[in-house]
């Protein structure tokens, strides 16, 4: 309903001008007098409105006059400055002036610095809330004052569950401003997303988290994605490829070793599984921990063998669990890759192990540790030649032993080799699906050997377990204790990496929500801030040089997060 700005009262001049209870000698004269009186009232009302109108005009004219005066003064000062400019003095080219103007104006300390700042403020000032109560003319204020006030629906707010203002269902002066503000904020957010999430860059902490992610991701795109996915689902995918590839690497390294390796290959998975069984309680612990810790123990302590035996002491369980733990070990392995690097330092020399380690670097090291324990356990018990060699070598493990059998222990690291195949033998190992079939071939050497080797392995394991059991019980508990103690520290680095990755994603989300809140808070009632933010976003879009990288990252993040 339109409201007239100015209403001249009384509107009906001649109505009600005749007093009812007072008899008049001449009613016509009475009506005429009353009409004239109302006309005079109209004139007074008109004069009042005219005064108000002229007052507004005079105020606006005065503002323009002041502005024009200040502008004239600035023009005069500017004219003086321009006349004082000396063309003989070296001056920056006009382009440079244009380029630097914006920055210098705010940074330069000059006589006119203050003036400049004011000027720029004025230029950046936006007229806000032009049609709001404060800017409403007094005449309209009076008209509004005459209007009926909205019903006090806000008094019912205490009975509302949704926390909304009941009065806003009746009237909401800020409705359209809120619409506009939300639209602008959404646009800015969308622009930022399209840009590649600039907000992340400025964040120092978030940037580190991203860096860690980037490092992990850059080496292997598809695999790392799979790893991340696997981390969520248990990493079952990673293990098969790792086991599968390990045999291939071994073959390439030493054909002679291959024979031994073939025998041991089936066991490798078993050993891994055993590890897993050990790790069962501590998932990541077994794979990553045993390798470095076991090597160190060999070197330092004569009990190291005992420790190893202790490891196998659990062996009986492991032999039983060989089949069972497979899944848990696989889960653990993916997490292991990071810790692997330390193991390399411990076992420098062995050809195959070194290769495997070099191949997988950190990751390969993890598998090797398990084999040494077998070797250790075997020597005391008088296990087969392979085992005996391994056992003899296992203590040497720190001193590099080129023995093929040592190579065998490294093969268990096969799961770790998953990473190496990518680097060194991408072509051979490239097709993950094909590898599984080769595995049986390598393992069996013949068609049906796949099962027999496992049986042999189980038998060996069982022997080892018996031997271990026969070995003094003290050793086993000690090992267990040490292992139990060690695994947690080993697992920490891996966990940290995973945590860093996961936390990174979380951090982004949290930051987003915070940003939104901040934006909302800032943009609540300030049009200038919203516009300024949007302008800044647009400018930053144009400025951002590494759009491609940021975009890719953004997409990758989105995918991972999704």
């Amino acid at each position: 309903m339109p409201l007239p700005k100015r209403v001249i009262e009384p509107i009906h001049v001649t109505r009600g001008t005749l007093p009812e209870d007072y008899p008049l000698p001449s009613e016509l004269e009475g009506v005429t007098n009353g009409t004239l009186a109302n006309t005079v009232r109209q004139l007074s009302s008109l004069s009042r409105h005219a005064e108000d109108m002229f007052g507004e005009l005079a105020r606006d004219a005065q503002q323009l006059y002041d502005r024009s005066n200040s502008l004239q003064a600035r023009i005069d000062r500017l004219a003086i400055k321009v006349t004082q400019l000396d063309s003989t003095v070296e001056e920056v080219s006009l382009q440079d002036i244009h380029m630097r103007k914006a920055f210098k104006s705010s940074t330069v300390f000059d006589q006119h610095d203050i003036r400049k700042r004011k000027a720029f403020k004025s230029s950046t000032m936006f007229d806000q809330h032009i049609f709001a109560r404060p800017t409403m003319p007094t005449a309209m204020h009076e008209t509004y004052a005459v209007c009926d006030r909205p019903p006090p629906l806000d008094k019912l707010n205490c009975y509302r569950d949704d926390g909304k203002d009941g009065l806003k269902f009746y009237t909401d002066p800020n409705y359209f401003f809120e619409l506009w503000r939300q639209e602008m904020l959404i646009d800015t957010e969308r622009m930022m997303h399209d840009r590649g999430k600039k907000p992340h860059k400025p964040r120092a902490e978030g940037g580190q988290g991203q860096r860690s992610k980037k490092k992990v991701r850059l080496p292997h795109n598809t695999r790392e994605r799979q790893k991340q996915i696997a981390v969520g689902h248990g990493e079952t995918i990673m293990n098969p490829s790792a086991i599968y590839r390990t045999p291939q690497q071994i073959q390439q390294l030493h054909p002679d070793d291959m024979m031994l390796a073939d025998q041991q290959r089936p066991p490798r998975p078993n050993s891994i599984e055993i590890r897993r069984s050990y790790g069962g309680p501590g998932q990541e612990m077994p794979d990553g921990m045993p390798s470095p810790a076991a090597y160190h123990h060999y070197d330092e302590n004569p009990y190291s063998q005992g420790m190893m035996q202790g490891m196998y002491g659990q062996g009986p369980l492991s032999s039983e669990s060989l089949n069972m733990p497979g899944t848990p070990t696989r889960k653990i392995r993916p997490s292991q890759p990071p810790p692997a690097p330390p193991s390399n330092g411990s076992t420098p020399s062995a050809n195959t192990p070194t290769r495997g380690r070099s191949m997988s670097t950190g990751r390969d090291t993890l598998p090797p540790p398990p084999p040494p324990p077998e070797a250790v356990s075997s020597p005391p018990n008088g296990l087969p030649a392979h085992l005996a060699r391994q056992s003899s070598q296992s203590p040497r493990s720190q001193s590099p032993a080129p023995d093929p059998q040592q190579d065998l222990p490294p093969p268990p690291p096969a799961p770790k080799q998953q990473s190496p195949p990518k680097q060194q033998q991408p072509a051979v190992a490239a097709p993950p699906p094909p590898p599984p079939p080769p595995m049986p071939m390598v393992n069996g050497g013949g068609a049906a050997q796949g099962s027999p080797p496992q049986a042999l392995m189980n038998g060996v394991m069982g022997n080892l377990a018996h031997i271990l059991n026969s070995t003094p019980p003290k050793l086993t508990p000690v090992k267990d204790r040490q292992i139990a103690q060690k695994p947690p520290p080993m697992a920490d680095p891996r966990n940290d990496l995973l945590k860093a990755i996961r936390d990174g994603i979380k951090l982004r989300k949290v930051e987003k929500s915070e940003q939104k809140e901040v934006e909302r808070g800032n943009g609540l009632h300030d049009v200038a801030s919203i516009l300024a933010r949007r302008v800044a976003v647009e400018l930053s879009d144009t400025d951002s040089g590494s759009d491609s990288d940021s975009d890719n990252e953004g997409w990758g993040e989105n995918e991972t997060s999704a």
Partner: protein
Amino acid sequence: MSAPKAGEAVQKQIQQDWLNREYIEVITISIKKITDFLNSFDLSCRSKLAGLNEKLTILERKIDYLEACVTKGETLT
């Protein structure tokens, strides 16, 4: 006689009332004219003031730009 006198008196009153109504009509029309003039005056003044305001804004921005340029040059030298 009284009847014609009374009829004359009423006729006089009606004529006087018409005169009064005509007088009031002139006054109210004058008030309307004043109102129309004030409205048109207010409208024209506001439009002119708005034009002046716009021109002043443009001039102020130009002066801002020129001042920034000139001061920039000075600071550089």
